[in-house]
């Protein structure tokens, strides 16, 4: 089994289209265990029920945004070890710094290519294949 197949990924984005694209990209990279949530609250609920190894979350979302989710995940002992990658459509330094402070493993600007997504994940987990 490849590394990608073993990693449980949770996608969190309020846009259906973004979730579909993310899911496609991850499938192409060899991931098989992919769950999706529409906002931070829903994402955190899923993490509490079943912790995932990797969370890829949009920043700008209703209810709980990406940084809120990151904070919640890092505060809970059951989920705090998950790798966390923040996606952002409006990349600004303040957000990147805040994400780093809160313990994000990486930040990826939208629109991303599959190669960029792969690099961002490999920076956390090492080579996927």
């Amino acid at each position: 089994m490849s590394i990608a197949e073993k990693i449980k990924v949770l996608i969190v984005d309020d846009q259906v289209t973004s979730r579909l694209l993310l899911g496609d990209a991850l499938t192409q990279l060899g991931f098989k265990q992919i769950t999706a949530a529409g906002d931070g609250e829903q994402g955190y609920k899923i993490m509490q029920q079943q912790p995932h190894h990797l969370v890829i979350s949009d920043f700008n979302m209703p209810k709980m945004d990406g940084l809120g989710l990151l904070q919640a995940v890092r505060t809970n002992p059951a989920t705090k070890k998950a790798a966390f990658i923040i996606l952002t459509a409006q990349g600004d330094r303040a957000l990147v710094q805040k994400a780093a402070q809160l313990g994000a493993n990486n930040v990826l600007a939208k629109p991303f290519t599959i190669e960029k997504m792969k690099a961002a994940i490999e920076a956390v987990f090492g080579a996927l294949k």
Partner: protein
Amino acid sequence: MTEADTARRVHVIQGEYKVSRDPNVVLSTILGSCVAACIRDPVAGVGGMNHFLLPGSAETMRSGGDATRYGVHLMELLINGLLKEGARRDRLEAKIFGGAKTIATFSNVGEQNAAFAMQFLKDEGIPVVGSSTGGEFGRKLEFWPISGRARQYPLTGAETKKTVEMERARPAPPPKPVESSIEFF
């Protein structure tokens, strides 16, 4: 005073988006093969417009290639901009314009762009309350972001040709590289 005297005109160029809560603002743009999505929340009183041309074929758009990602990005920027100004996703409604087919280039890229926008809105559950796409002539478009009123004027054949040439000379800009490569470890 006439409408033209009180209105504040804001032009939206290719690859850009503008959001406004000002009832005196008129968003305007000129479209050849390009497509503009006009989205508003009638309750919050906020609206906006984007303007894009996705490169590539219908196949690359459907298969989730970079062109799709770019288009989704421009739609997301507009929607995020609206949400930031107090709009709610479940109240959004859209109008779609542009995507002219031009005989000069024998290309149906305009049609594919319009189809992309329609599919995106359908997937996101945002109703399309009006649209005017395709055809042989470009459009000059005006959109009042608060009332949702839209008005378009057809371009002449020569104007359409010139507009399409300008659009093609201005391909989709690459994503901003600044923050995309930041890695913490």
